[in-house]
């Protein structure tokens, strides 16, 4: 683990659905090297996938001329992932999804990505770029070998 203390891995994805799996695989590989448990790696993969999907679909609006940046920074006891797009960022956080409202047609069946991100990692924050672009979501998952 010590050799990973300052290691940064960067990936650039085309703004095309499906390429989030490249980021998932990369995050999984880095997390394995750091010694994360398999269940936490699965949590991380889903959170990274959802962050990339949001960046591709909402941030870059599926514009294939734009790319999504994924920066993984492996620290001593945590892994930080930034997913960067060219959107303006979110003005407000969506409400927590409510399955009963969805089942009764009172809420869109979609709209669970951000909820899953927040529920599956230890920290999640959405940062709007000061220049009106280059917004990012920052995820942190902590290494807890005893859990």
């Amino acid at each position, binding site marked *: 683990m010590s050799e990973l203390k300052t290691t940064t891995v960067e990936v650039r994805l085309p703004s095309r*659905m499906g390429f989030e799996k490249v980021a998932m695989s990369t995050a999984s590989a880095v997390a394995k090297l750091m010694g994360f448990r398999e269940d936490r790696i699965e949590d991380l993969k889903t959170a990274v996938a959802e962050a990339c999907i949001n960046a591709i679909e909402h941030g870059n609006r599926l514009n294939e001329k734009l790319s999504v940046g994924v920066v993984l920074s492996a620290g001593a006891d945590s892994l930080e992932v930034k997913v960067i797009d060219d959107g303006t960022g979110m003005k407000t956080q969506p409400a927590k999804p409510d*399955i009963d409202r969805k*089942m009764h047609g009172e809420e*869109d069946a*979609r709209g*669970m990505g951000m909820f899953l991100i927040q529920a599956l990692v230890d920290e999640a924050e959405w940062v709007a770029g000061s220049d009106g672009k280059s917004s990012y979501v920052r995820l942190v998952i902590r290494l807890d070998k005893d859990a």
Partner: protein
Amino acid sequence: MQSETKSRVDQLTSPAGHPVTVLRFEGDIASTSKDAVLGLYQALPKSDVKLILLDFTKVDYINSSGIALVIQLLIEAASAGQKVYAFGLSAHFTKVFTMVGITKYAGLFASQTEALAAL
């Protein structure tokens, strides 16, 4: 780039003698899976089908768009008076389905054998 979702229908009978329609999925379940998930379900004869089992044994990846398709299926099944159950989810996706509340409307089982025994 997104891998194709394969799906098919099997007709089984539970040990208790109830006809069970099994929708089997394979590959990814994502935004491109609408025909494979909802299309397959919507092609079922509603009057004959009362118990539906979703088989996720060969599904590697489900994202939030895929979960939304499953919820859409549950909405349509509920309005048709059908009961839906699922099996074969990995431990991770069992957790995710539980987190988003799907388990309130679709019972989850580890295997087809366990699911059929309960129906």
